[in-house]
């Protein structure tokens, strides 16, 4: 019997028990749907992260204090003087920004909000894609002269000053009043979790938080090839100045991308294991219903044998039926999964990524489950004795 006919027979028998068939493949459906949805959302998320990172540029690096060390080092924090000395000693550097950050309540005229207060310098705007819509970003004289100015985004401005133009208004951070000198186009980064970032000069930040210190140093080189050298030279300068080794940690984009890949890799593995179990249970369900089907159709099997079906014809017929059943579940699962991925992504605000590899993988997987769990029932069918089978009611 040829393949087309076998598929037709399989489909006829599945259609004759449509509800049962669909319920049977539920496990496979859920398994495949979960895999597709998670992989699509995960890959979409990963791509968004990558995109966001690429915007930062491949010529960037960060230096932080290695907080994994047990004791909090005192007197080893970055100072403004460190920055000047590194700048003087590392010629590859184009920018070097001392950055300080904390979360705090800020007050507008009547309203307060929590925001991330980032102390930075004028060059920050050249390293990051910020869009100024009104006023200006921090400039060098703001930073050198410790001017009490702040840059916020439009949404925050709207919340703090609902009726007025926020530009030139005062907002209070800690015990200091700062004047809004620029407004940014609001952009929701997936890292921010809805918290707004406001920008003030680092020196002002250090005045507001005298107990705090510079959190990290952000550096940029003229060309991406120099990033590693510049980062290492900068760390050397710091180590020499603070008489400490292995205290400062550098990170460039390449490392960050690797870190993200590692996280997504682990996530994929975990989901893979869960989906694997779901598919295993689904496969057993299919095996079960195929055994029922063999019992129900014993006479049909006997008749087919009487009409000239060899054992392998019967084996292949039932195997194909199991595969078609699993593929049916796989296709429904895939549809649900893709739908789910778009739904989750709509809520999470990043585009899902359904790759052909994923679809192909789901298909192959469904078919494999069909073969693995179809073998036993199909073999049982093929080994029936035609006389016994024909006699069965």
């Amino acid at each position, binding site marked *: *019997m040829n393949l087309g006919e076998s598929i037709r027979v399989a489909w006829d028998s599945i259609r004759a028990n449509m509800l049962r068939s669909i319920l049977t493949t539920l496990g496979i459906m859920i398994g495949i749907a979960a895999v597709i949805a998670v992989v699509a959302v995960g890959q979409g998320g990963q791509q968004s992260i990558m995109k966001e990172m690429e915007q930062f540029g491949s010529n960037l690096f960060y230096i932080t204090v290695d907080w994994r060390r047990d004791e909090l080092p005192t007197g080893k924090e970055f100072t403004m003087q460190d920055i000047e000395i590194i700048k003087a000693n590392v010629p590859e550097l184009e920018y070097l920004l001392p950055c300080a950050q904390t979360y705090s309540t800020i007050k507008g005229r009547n309203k307060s909000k929590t925001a991330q207060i980032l102390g930075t310098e004028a060059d920050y705007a050249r390293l990051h894609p910020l869009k100024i819509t009104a006023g200006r970003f921090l400039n060098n004289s703001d930073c050198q002269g410790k001017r009490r100015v702040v840059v916020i985004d439009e949404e925050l401005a709207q919340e703090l000053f609902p009726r007025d133009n926020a530009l030139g208004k005062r907002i209070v951070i800690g015990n200091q009043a700062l004047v809004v000198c620029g407004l940014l186009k609001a952009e929701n980064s997936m890292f921010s979790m809805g918290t707004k970032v406001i920008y003030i000069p680092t020196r002002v930040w250090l005045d507001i938080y005298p107990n705090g210190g510079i959190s990290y140093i952000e550096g940029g080189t003229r060309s991406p090839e120099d990033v590693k050298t510049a980062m290492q030279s900068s760390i050397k300068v710091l180590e020499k100045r603070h008489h400490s080794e292995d205290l400062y940690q550098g990170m460039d984009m390449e490392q960050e991308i690797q870190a993200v890949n590692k996280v997504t890799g682990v996530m994929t593995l975990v989901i893979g294991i869960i989906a694997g179990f779901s598919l295993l249970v689904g496969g057993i369900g299919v095996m079960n219903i195929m055994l029922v089907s063999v019992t129900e159709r014993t006479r049909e099997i006997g*008749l087919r044998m009487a009409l*000239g079906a060899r054992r392998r*014809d019967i084996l292949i017929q039932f195997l194909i039926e199991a595969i078609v059943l699993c593929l049916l579940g796989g296709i429904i699962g895939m549809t649900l999964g893709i739908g789910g991925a778009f739904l989750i992504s709509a809520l999470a605000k990043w585009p899902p990524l359904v790759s052909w590899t994923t679809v192909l993988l789901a298909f192959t997987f469904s078919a494999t489950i069909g073969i693995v769990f179809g073998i036993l029932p199909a073999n049982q069918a093929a080994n029936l004795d035609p006389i016994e089978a*024909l006699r069965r009611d």
Partner: protein
Amino acid sequence: MIKMEQINKIYRPHSNPVHALRDVDLHIEIGDFVAIMGPSGSGKSTLMNVMGCLDTPSSGAYWLGGVEVSSMNSDQLATVRNQKIGFVFQNYNLLPRMTALRNVELPMLYAGVNKDERNTRALDCIGRVGMLDRIHHRPSELSGGQCQRIAIARALVNNPDIILADEPTGNLDSATSLEIMNLFQSLYQENTTIVLVTHEEDIAAFARRVLTFRDGKLVNDEILNPHLIEPSAVEGGGDI
């Protein structure tokens, strides 16, 4: 055509042996119409299974169309059943989800016949049993007699050497039984070899030759209707 020598069939030879067939010697010629009779337990069903290559004898030799089939493996037997034997069952055994046409095409699927030829041959056989107006009906939409006609068309479709009919009228009323037996007789006139198993004498009366079994033994072999055409008179008939 069919030659059996010293055929024995013993079920459960070790624990509780049942001697279903004892030393059966049998010869059926091409183009003959033979009825096998006997009460239940006489071994006629076992003989039918052995003759239909659904079962193998415990001992003895069986030639079908000049080929020794008693020692074949299950795949070879499947091919023999497909090519040389057409089965007609008491309960028709049509597949309920398929139309009459597809049911008739079924044996050709296992013979690897291409689609166009399947269609042509199926329609031809359905024509021979007078069911061309019902080809797209499912078995549930057909009467018992119509189902049996379709089953006979299915038995004919691979041009088998013999038609084996096991109580073909067992589920039919007497008027329909008569129609079916007339159909068999007309097939016999067209030179089809028919072996019919029945326990009803008036059904057996349609055959040319009647073999009677009792306790696994062939006890009577008579020509019931000598006026029907002699198989040897048919061209190509006779011994092999």
